[in-house]
């Protein structure tokens, strides 16, 4: 198998491999996904399969449709056609909160937190639903030891415990990015989508963020959009290249690195 084969057969191969290896459906499986905004076709037939426990990166030039793809998978927008399966079950067209409850959680490219609430409350909001908090208005929240323990644990992991009482809006940019990841993982979702988690970070901050991502994605399935190639190649088990709404290649980092097609379409213009 070479990296230069077209996207569709590659994805099919991935599916087969997963089926043989685990005899369970892939964590995430996308078939023939299309999204039009009016006459503009943004996603033009994406096939993608992410095996359970895999760290999968989606790369591509600006405007390729990476964020739209994430918005489709996470339920923020509804696909025009095609199918999205989470652990073998279709979540196509389902509202975002239902997809989240089925174990898929995402972060945002632009920091998307609860700015007026404390750091502690930000993380706790993400812990509540999976721990049975639901919409309860007859039960206290502060005395829930389980929720508090998990919140404490997440804040420790993202290294924001010392900042827990200040409003999230006054955190530094890098801290807000860490909080963004914390909110995303706090609920314990087993499929995590990260949209450019290191965008705008310094080199040192990026290194810490990658370390954090590596740690929290342990034992989970990760789909990540990232522009920083050192992050992508250092982190991902597999990489898919999205260009103009289509996946032109999907494979291991080595395969992608050596793919002439990818070089031509993407890496070539990015090579510094």
């Amino acid at each position, binding site marked *: 198998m070479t990296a230069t084969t077209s996207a569709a057969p590659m994805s099919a191969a991935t599916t087969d491999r997963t089926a043989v290896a685990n005899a369970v459906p892939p964590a995430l499986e996308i078939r023939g996904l299309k999204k039009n905004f009016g006459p503009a076709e943004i996603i033009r037939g994406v096939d993608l399969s992410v095996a359970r426990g895999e760290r999968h990166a989606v790369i591509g030039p600006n405007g390729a449709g990476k964020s739209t793809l994430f918005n489709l998978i996470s339920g923020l927008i509804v696909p025009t056609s095609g199918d999205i399966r989470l652990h073998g079950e279709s979540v196509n067209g389902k509202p975002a*909160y239902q997809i989240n409850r089925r174990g898929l*959680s995402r972060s945002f490219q632009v920091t998307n937190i609860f700015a007026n*609430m404390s750091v502690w409350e930000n993380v706790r*909001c993400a812990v509540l*639903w999976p721990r049975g908090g639901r919409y309860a*208005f007859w039960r206290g929240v502060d*005395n829930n030891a389980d929720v508090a323990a998990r919140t*404490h644990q997440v804040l420790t992991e993202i290294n924001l415990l010392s900042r827990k*009482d200040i409003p999230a809006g006054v955190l530094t940019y890098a801290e807000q990015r860490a909080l963004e990841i914390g909110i995303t993982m706090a609920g314990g979702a087993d499929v995590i989508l990260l949209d450019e988690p290191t965008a705008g970070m310094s080199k040192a901050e990026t290194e810490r963020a990658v370390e954090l991502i590596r740690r929290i994605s342990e034992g989970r399935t990760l789909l990540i959009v990232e522009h920083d190639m050192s992050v992508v190649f250092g982190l991902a088990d597999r990489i898919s290249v999205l260009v103009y709404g289509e996946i032109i290649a999907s494979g291991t980092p080595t395969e992608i690195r050596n793919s002439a097609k990818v070089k031509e379409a993407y890496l070539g213009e990015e090579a510094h």
Partner: protein
Amino acid sequence: MSEIISHSAVAPATPSAPIAQPSAQSALGRIGSYGLWIGLAAILLTAPLVFRSGTALTVMSLMGIMIIFALSYNMLLGQTGMLSFGHAVYFGLGAYFTIHAMNAVIDSKLAIPVVVMPLIGGVAGLVFAMLFGWVSTKRSGTAFSMISLGLAELVGSSSLILRSFFGGEEGVSTNRAKLLRIFDWNFGPQVQVYYLIAGWCLLCIVLMYALTRTPFGRMCNAVRDNAERTQFVGYNPRVVRYIAFSLAGLFAGIAGGLATINFELANAALFGATQSGNVLLATYIGGAGFFFGPILGAVLVTFLQNMLSDVTEVWQLYFGLMFIATVMYAPGGLAGLIMMHRPLWRAGAIAKLLPGYLLMIVPAALVAVGAILLIEMITHLSVKAAEGPVMKMAGITFNAAGVPAWSLCIGTLAAGVLIWRFASGVAARGWDDARAVAREKGLTV
């Protein structure tokens, strides 16, 4: 919307170090919060002993009703970020259902005391909020506000059509003293009604505060801050808005029920646009970002409404100016202003503010006197033109069209503005110094 929440509370009682010392922390916190409630109960209990006049009792009763109403409104505005222009609908419907229930109890001689009647109003408020909220909470932001306005118009106009229920222009009346007595209280005298209202007020404050400390209450704040993000932590923001709207209707209905017991009357004015505007004003002036803000707002606004109207005919103008000033210069309201000083107080740096603040009293008083003089003279010359230019204010008779009065007015204003610029500089320096101290101690960022 962002201005409304910009000063908002980072929950007053965020549990600190839940793992480290859970028992000690919560036990202390419990005593602290119980102390607050006991203090509040003591104030409500002793207020009629301090303010004994009939007017004071009436005003305090109205304050109690307004506190519940404003807090219920803030469940939408401050807690969930929903700006409703029609909250009086649930207040008014609560009032009407209560008064009809009271009359039914009187007619059929049921052994039910008036004390429980606000519950009927609460249920009515809840049911109608669940009904109307089903439509309006499908949208947020401006669309929600517009729908709330439309629904208010709908109910307002139906009150003139359904005369058998709403009683047309004269409304529906009752006699609260005819219900079952409790011991020798028939709730006829105002002081007994005051205690009835105070009891419900305390209960509702405690319940509404408790609501903010539940998973639902926390998610209300999350929806307010960022509705989109709540979907990605498993919550449907629409459901959160719907529950908030329904429960706000419940408490508004209780307030309406108390109002009808207080007035022994229910008419269309109870759910008019003025009433919806009043509750918005009280909540905003008090401060929507903090739980206790609407309590301050309800007390202040009710007091001013009843006192200012005795002093001046254009009290609504002063009211409007106060509202505009709050929106422009203190978007966090009274509560926001108070809470701004909390870290400085804890840092022991509050004394640094005193010189500047004391100095500010001078220009503030001058500007206020000048502005009041200006407004009252114009009012006298335009509204009361028939009475001639001579008017009386604060016991002084003068010619409102004369040069001396206008010179004094403009001179006072000008002096006030000039001194203001100097004094505000001193105040700002004091503020910066105090902030620096607080920042050093890690009490602010």
